[in-house]
């Protein structure tokens, strides 16, 4: 029968201080800088754990996933037929909807699986099952069927971590479809919504309008669906709208995604020429 204070050693406070300082450095270093830090789930061991458990939960929701894929498949077939009909009817046909391809850029999409995902933190991230060995690069965009998911911020050999769109450090350039007003999209804590700023006071748009990516950065191609306008207002004394955008997808349920790899056309041509030699 002894009090626990009898086991108190004078040096335990020093140890506490050292350990807590290390932790603080890790926290600050991770949030404020983008350099690679060893402690994240891109390492093989924890990546494997996440992969196995996500396989298991995907297995449980397999029929729901299959339904989702078949809906998406039907949608793509419809778009394909529409495009084919229009191409046959109109010889001067130009692609003007869906993904508006910039002629100087070529995009490639690498399918990935999301194996670990958070939506209830302040800085949300997710882990994907591809890494350096699969050609994933820093700052590549990650997109889903109906939304923008995030940007790759850390790369391991077999896994990578992306900053989710539900992260205050994430900035995406958006556009109101059909009206061509540009604004910057960021997140302020609501899991189903993002905010779009910088749309001027004189702009004309309405509730239900679609927000797409503007393609001003090379991270995301132009024309990807982000969400639809829910509400909007002008804060007193400001000259810009604040637009509340409902995301096109429930980000807590994302399972499959595509990593965007963009190459400039010249680069592509030179690679192809090199291969022919």
């Amino acid at each position, binding site marked *: 029968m002894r009090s*626990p204070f009898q086991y108190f050693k004078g040096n335990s406070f020093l140890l506490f201080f050292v350990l807590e300082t290390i932790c603080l450095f890790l*926290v600050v270093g991770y949030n404020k800088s983008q350099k690679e830090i060893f402690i994240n789930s891109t390492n093989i061991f924890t990546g494997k*754990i996440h992969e196995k458990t996500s396989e298991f939960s995907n297995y449980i929701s397999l029929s729901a996933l299959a339904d989702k894929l078949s809906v998406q498949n039907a949608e793509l077939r419809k778009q394909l037929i529409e495009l084919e009909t229009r191409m046959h009817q109109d010889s001067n046909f130009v692609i003007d909807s869906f993904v508006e391809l910039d002629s100087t850029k070529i995009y490639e999409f690498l399918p990935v699986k999301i194996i670990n995902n958070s939506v209830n933190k302040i800085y949300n991230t997710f882990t994907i099952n591809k890494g350096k060995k699969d050609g994933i690069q820093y700052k590549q965009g990650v997109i889903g069927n109906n939304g923008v998911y995030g940007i790759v911020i850390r790369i391991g050999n077999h896994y990578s971590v992306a900053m989710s769109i539900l992260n205050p450090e994430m900035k995406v350039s958006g556009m109101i479809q059909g009206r061509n007003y540009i604004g910057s999209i960021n997140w302020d804590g609501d899991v189903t919504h993002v905010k779009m700023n910088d749309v001027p006071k004189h702009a004309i748009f309405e509730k239900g309008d679609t927000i797409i990516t503007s393609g001003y950065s090379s991270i995301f191609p132009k024309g990807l669906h982000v969400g639809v306008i829910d509400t909007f207002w002008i804060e007193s004394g400001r000259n810009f709208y604040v637009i509340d955008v409902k995301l096109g997808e429930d980000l807590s349920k994302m399972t499959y995604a595509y990593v965007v790899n963009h190459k400039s056309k010249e680069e592509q041509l030179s690679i192809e020429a090199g291969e022919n030699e």
Partner: protein
Amino acid sequence: MNNDLARNIIRFVILVLLQVVIFMDMIPDWKYISIFIYPLIIILASFKYSNSLLLLIAFAMGLIIDFTDNSPGVHAGALVMMAFSRPLILSLFEPTGGYLLNKIPTVSNYGLVWFAKYASLMMLVHLLTYFSLESFSFVYFVTIISKTIGSFLVSMIFIFIYQFIFVPKE
């Protein structure tokens, strides 16, 4: 002693797996509720351990959870804080006869009421530190408090359930 060491290693592995596989990967994310089971490694630690050893165990456990959660330093910082506060919290609730060196702090050894008081305070220290470190700014004060309360209520349920399933000995 070897028995004790083996038991603690097994508990460590069980808690890591429960936390990562069940409470992080399987359970969906709720806005104000996260379930924390791994702090039991410090809550249930033997009185035989020195404070320095407790701090090191907390740091190791915290870093492993950080590894899997993409949150370097957040879990570790909170658990080290909890381990550091343990002697103080134990002295607050010290029973009249004091603590028995070979009886670890559980419901069966010291009673339900005693354990509820002790584990609650330990968890509150952990969760407040955790959510403060996570946001790293007091702008999110309301969020920090709401998340602490939500996570506290649900985590405590699982902390009690754990003791009835695994029945920690000694």
